[in-house]
């Protein structure tokens, strides 16, 4: 048995010999996107365009860490975040889902470093959750066609997060300044991508590059 962490094989970061693919790769190609290498991933690049009323971006290559531990330890880790709240520092999102459960979202190249810093109780879920971001002025309208979760501004403001059903799939939702992150099982990613686009069809939803979904500072971070 290797002396390294027994579950290191969960992390794609060490998969240096492979081109990593998101679940929606064929959807991107069918929609005319090109695939570009980024940190070992094949990331979809769409032609720049005027911002549509609603857009959808594939951020599945983003790093995702699942953190579990005692409430005190999670308190310490998250800076005593309230339940259902998230904060962002230097492009790293920390979501508090329950007293003993938090999630960290970061750029892929920081996953290993952050996982090591957190230590025990962390599971690299980068390949566990597909990440889709809904944005644009009508993002909330698209979401309302996809889930019964209440995402009105007064109930689910920026920096709020929750677990619930989106398109009948168990999901984690984050309001990132009006952009909605939807994390769902990797195996459901392609379905979710298609279903969200279908929900936004009448609204004029369009797929965009991942860079549109993240502020430049976060991409660089």
């Amino acid at each position, binding site marked *: 048995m290797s002396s390294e962490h027994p579950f290191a094989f969960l*992390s794609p970061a060490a*998969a240096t010999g492979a081109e990593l693919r998101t679940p929606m790769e064929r959807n991107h190609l069918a929609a005319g996107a090109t695939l570009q290498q980024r940190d070992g991933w094949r990331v979809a690049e769409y032609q720049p365009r005027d911002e549509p009323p609603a857009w959808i971006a594939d951020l599945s290559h983003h790093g995702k860490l699942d953190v579990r531990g005692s409430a005190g330890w999670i308190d310490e880790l998250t800076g005593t975040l309230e339940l259902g709240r998230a904060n962002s520092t230097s492009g790293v999102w920390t979501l508090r889902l329950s007293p003993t459960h938090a999630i960290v979202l970061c750029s892929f190249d920081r996953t290993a470093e952050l996982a090591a810093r957190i230590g025990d109780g962390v599971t690299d879920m980068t*390949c566990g959750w597909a990440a889709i971001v809904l944005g644009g002025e009508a993002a909330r309208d698209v979401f309302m066609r996809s889930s019964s979760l209440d995402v009105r501004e007064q109930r689910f403001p920026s920096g709020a997060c929750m677990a619930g059903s989106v398109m009948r799939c168990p999901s984690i939702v984050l309001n990132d300044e009006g952009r909605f992150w939807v994390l769902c099982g990797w*195996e459901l990613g392609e379905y979710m991508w298609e*279903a969200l686009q279908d929900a936004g069809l009448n609204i004029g939803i369009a797929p965009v590059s991942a860079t549109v979904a993240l502020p430049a500072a976060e991409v660089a971070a």
Partner: protein
Amino acid sequence: MADERMASRTGELIDRSDQVSFTWEGEPASGFKGDTIGSALFARGTRVFSRSFKYHRRRGLMCCAGQCPNCLVEVDGVPAVRACVTPIEEGMSVRHINAWPSLQRDFLHLVGRLTPSFGMQVGFYYKTFIHPRRAWPLYEKLLRNAAGLGRLDPEHRRTERFDKVHRHVDVLVIGGGEAGLEAAAEAAESGKQVTLVDEGLALGGQLAWSGPSARARLDALRERVSEAGVEILQPAYAGGVYEGLLVPVYQGRTMHRFRPAELVIATGSIEQPLVFGNNDLPGVMLATGARRLVNQFRIMPGEQAVVVTSSDEGIAAALDLADGGMNVAAVADSRRDADGSRVEDAGIEYLAGYQPWQAKGSKAVSGVVVTRDGKHRTLDCDLLVMSGGSVSHTSFITQGGGSIRYDRDQRRYVPDALPPGMRVVGAAAGSAAAAGAVPASAPKTMCKQVVCFCEDVTTKDIALSLDEGFRSLELAKRYTTVTMGPCQGRMCHRNAGLVIADKLGLDADAERVGVTTARPPHHPTSFSLLAARGYEPVKRTSTHHWHAEHGGKMLWAGDWKRPYDYGDADSEAAAVHASLGLIDVSTLGKLIVRGPDAAAFLERIYPNRFGDMKLARVRYGIVCGDDGSIVDDGTVARLSEHEYYVTTTSSGAGGMEQWFTWWNAVWKMDVQIVNVTSTLAAFNLAGPNARTALAKLTEFDLSNEAFPYLGAGHATIAGVPCLVLRIGFVGELGYEIHLPTAAGEHVWEQLMEAGEEFRVKPFGLEPQRVLRLEKMHVIIGQDTNAESNPLEAAMPWIVKLDKESDWIGRYAIEWYKQRGNRLALVGWEGGNGKVPKEGTQVVGAGGEPAGRITSSRYSHRLGKAIGIAWVPVAQAEEGTAILISDPSGATIPATITHRPFYDPDGERLRS
């Protein structure tokens, strides 16, 4: 016929400058923007819109408010559309729904004519069509063709897009009348987010057609709601109120699923028809219906009107019609003490104490006979306006969990207890002013006196049901279908109660008659709207598209899509035996169990031991329920002192995660359970050449000495860190490779390439099932059921009753052990080459049931049919001959065996 309208007036809904063309019965028709189908056709002379449900009587506009069934038509292939509230659209095609061959000449009308002699009163088909029994399919076809509210075209395909939106609001107001507008404005002004839903074409309810002062009030309210920011959905209707105040609202092609914090019911009241002979003739119209036509669509509904009424609404209608220039011959008011002076001041004859006996006319109304104290008077008219007062609209209250009670003063049912979050305002909450008098019982006549317009139920039908013993409204509903139609009793519930009360000699106020349940949908609603966009989550593995692109026949396997085979299941199975095969097993459930108590936790979860496992080893395990039944199986690999990697069945991942989490909470152990099913792809490379092929992609020592059977190791394969388990479900040397899903397609392609020299074949579910059967490996849920325990399921070796710790299912299994086995899960091999179907029975010599086949396949490798079966213990001895029943009636001889059919000693697995 030309479109005939009255002079333009403030408040009319039509835009005379914008003409809209459509077709009616295939012929060109037109109206103005703002017209409904009903108003546009009525303005051009159409008086018959439909035929009644059962007797195919002519029906014309009656309520003009979408409550009655008289104007249901087919629009662009969609049946049961309410013409009186559906706006016309350019190019729409409107047709009648239930007449043959045409609406004007409907042969099925003879049903009604034959009624007295043919005995087609209520329940006739129960009594008439039971002989001869074999003729029922023919009767059924005839009856179904004769009745109904249109037909669905089986060839029709959805051509339009329907949508579904989830809405959360602080306040949802149903009803845009005066009370609804007031409530909405008030809530919005207090800072709440408010949506108001109204099914009419104009806000305001009765304010919209009740004169200048009402108009001014309406304008003020409209301005108020607008300034307060109330969202208005119109025309839109609430389909019902469900648990938790879930309210589906249908607007055009969109279903809004509202979950309001507060639901305000402002549905007002519903005007009731009167019961008299021929009260369903075209030209007989409710007072509010006639007023809508006059005031909103500027249509004079007739040339000479007579009003029969038991309430002030009839008087108001008479004055309105007269004001519009119509000749109103008389108002017959069944009340003897009402004030008719306003009517007389308008020059209209007022007949106090007169009630309608029967309308005259065959195809349309030509007059009415009214009666008082046995004296009849005949009045000529081509419009007979009736008003039986109104009832509160309480359907949504009861659907939402509230209750209603009869209020003797108001003579109507009013809200009683309301569920949390529901409020009722306006006439829906009760209104003595609008109640009017409860009409006297209907005088006897030979003509049909329709009580339920939806279902064609008459007073005679209800009387018959009472005579036959159905002596309550609820029972009469079931026997006659009164209140069961599209209006769910809104137009007939009160009158049905009155008729029953009269016949049974009960309180005339219907207090003791009770109410029936008004169920959703509130109005006819298309399946397309209910279905809207489909949600059918599909789980795809990381190599899903590779399979599909390489001939994989993808099928549903639980929530997943998996390849059944790649075109030739037999050769795929043969490749695994002879050389090399690769199967995608990413669907397996995968759990991390870690923490200081991980070993102790697994000891309690499983009947077998895991605390004594050495590192880097894998062990098979089953999970039992409290009752000792097998609920799942899989493998457990120990990766460190306190870290285990657990696999479950494909369908069991979620359930096992919950099961583990539940027990961890109960036992309060220091264990973390993380479901990593989504995170990892898993492939099984199997066959005699598996080691050689895999060695091309890794430096990991795969030799039997370094990595023996049931070993677990970390290996970098094709540049990807993997966990490799040396296990074999398919009976050959095999490696189950677990790796990050994002690298799944890459590793799969590399494995296929590495296996090319060995003619590797991808294999699907079907060859896998044959291969596992050859090894007699069971599939939990197929070979076992909810009553299967490990002792009977040929797995006594897995049960460690001597474990120190308690474990789930222990007491039940100890009991099973004391009791002794009754059944046994055994293998069987066929004697005549025939392959019985799975699920068929094992039978005794006399044909009696003696077990069942759970798995059955033909093994080309072995040249015979093989399988697994449950049989009684007495028949479970090795070599016992059994008979398997074939659906054709023949029997298939077979022999019981306990050892695997292929490689019984596992030499190939361990090679």
